[in-house]
């Protein structure tokens, strides 16, 4: 996860960083992610989750991905239950506080079927930042004295060479691939993110490959009219996939809120019987539909319209 610096630069130099169109389908993008790859997942909790890409990876039968995300919601449950991942690095893992402790997370971690590797939220962020900076670690002043660090052999406690103060060092995290969902980008991958950016800028620059999904693909002229809004540069991006409602049933800032009815129904189904509930959900919503559009059909027009109404009115009413 913290490769040799020469190797890190080599992998970047090997990528085609030219200004070129890289639009492809979800299936084509999924083929860029190998089994056992380390995958950084953008967004946080219910926000800008790259759900369409995760959905495509599960459908493609990916196995044993090592996934890292700031905070993990029910997309982590789907990754565990489908076998796409058995190792998730995150600071917090459950669908959301209003739905209680995740039964799937509990089932998989308590029985040793999967691993939830817990780091503090800032530690996850600084690991991506160190990765983005091309340095092997960053110092921080939290996680010291707690049991979290005791369970993480990759951390180091040092005395600062300048002040003598104790500092916690966390290693860089340079995932093989980052999955990031954005409001808009052009065909080259110049990505504009509205609202909360979470850790996505660092994640994009840390990763060795970036797959963008986007609510819509816009012209390069539109990007150039507002270059200050571009948060991820095209040269860091390897694939662009247009996926409207690409975070649903989670939210995308300024465009739609979460589909709360769907998430409530999902949580109720899991509560009744975690194992069978999630299996049936995967069958119906992930493996069943023939396309992302058909998946959206299953979520339903009424719920998507309501999510859209709520999402667009938050900042513009």
């Amino acid at each position: 996860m913290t490769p040799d610096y020469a190797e890190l630069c080599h992998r970047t130099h090997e990528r085609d960083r030219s200004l070129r169109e890289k639009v492809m389908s979800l299936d084509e993008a999924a083929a860029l992610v190998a089994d056992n790859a380390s995958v950084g997942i953008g967004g946080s909790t219910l926000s800008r989750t790259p759900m369409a890409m995760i959905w495509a990876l599960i459908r493609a039968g990916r196995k044993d991905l090592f996934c890292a995300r700031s905070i993990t919601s029910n997309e982590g449950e789907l990754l565990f239950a489908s076998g796409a991942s058995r190792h998730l690095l995150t600071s917090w893992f459950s669908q959301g506080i209003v739905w209680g402790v995740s039964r799937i997370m509990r089932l998989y971690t308590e029985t040793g079927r999967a691993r939830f590797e817990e780091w503090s939220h800032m530690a996850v962020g600084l690991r991506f930042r160190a990765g983005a900076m091309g340095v092997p670690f960053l110092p921080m002043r939290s996680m010291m004295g707690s049991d979290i660090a005791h369970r993480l052999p990759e951390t180091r406690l040092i005395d600062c060479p300048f002040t003598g103060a104790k500092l916690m060092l966390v290693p860089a995290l340079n995932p093989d691939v980052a999955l990031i969902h954005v409001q808009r980008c052009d065909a080259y991958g110049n990505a504009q993110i509205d609202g909360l950016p979470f850790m996505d800028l660092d994640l994009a620059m840390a990763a060795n490959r970036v797959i963008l999904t986007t609510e819509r693909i816009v012209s390069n002229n539109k990007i150039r009219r507002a270059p200050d809004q571009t948060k991820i540069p095209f040269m860091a991006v390897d694939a662009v996939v247009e996926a409207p409602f690409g975070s649903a049933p989670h939210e995308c800032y300024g465009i739609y809120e979460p589909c709360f009815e769907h998430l409530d129904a999902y949580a109720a189904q899991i509560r009744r019987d975690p194992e069978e509930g999630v299996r049936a959900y995967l069958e119906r919503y992930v493996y069943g539909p023939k396309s992302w559009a058909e998946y959206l059909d299953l979520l339903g027009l009424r719920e998507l319209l309501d999510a859209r109404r709520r999402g667009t009115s938050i900042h513009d009413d």
Partner: protein
Amino acid sequence: MTTRTADHTASELLAVMSARLLRDGQVVFAGVGVPLLAATLAQRLHAPGLTILFEGGVVGAFIEPGKLPPSTNEQRCARRANMVLGSTDVLLLLQRGYIDIGFMGGAQIDQYGNLNSSFIGDPDHPVTRLPGTGGGNDIASLTQMIVAMKHEKRRFVKRVDFVTSPGFLSGAESRREAGLTTGGMYRVVTDLGIFGFEERSKRMQLVALHSGITTEQVQTNTGFELLIAAELAITEPPSEKELKALRHLDPDRLYTA
């Protein structure tokens, strides 16, 4: 112990009592649930200049009644805020010393104010795997803390099964010696009373009782021997005005059921 009177729920009591601890002009880093609600309540009642930060990256939140966010990472948190930042950068504001109070809930706490939100039982073979720290460890490591939680014997234990978010670790100077030179537990607010930490031992100390609650009741519901402050205060029950404002904020009882 869950106290519910005809007047208010235990969660409402927690929200009102902890809101009263916040002062106008403070910069508060709030977690989701009661902390978010209590900070917003304080902002609407006596602390209009209270600045609320969320780990999702929000600076200067202004939560809308009836539209409470499901976590501190959704766009509802950002509505009418002063700024949005990356989540790493908003957490770094704690490390840089901009925050007066960190404010969170807790699943399990011990006599030194250490919080556990990771594992019940042996971490290698847990009885229950809990959701984890989120930003809790960072907040508790870097600033003064208020914790709001229900008072139950199984939650107030002599030693937490796992230190997710550090209080005073093993008491006395141990927090400082571990490298945590700032912050620490300030107050724990429960449905029975308000607790501080004795200056030298850093052991939890009852500083105020809610009206109608006895020290014996508190001790019975606590899994370790409590210190009792020499001058024990009795809190004023939540007022009509406070409860009305609170119910206006959370009409669906998302966080105050």
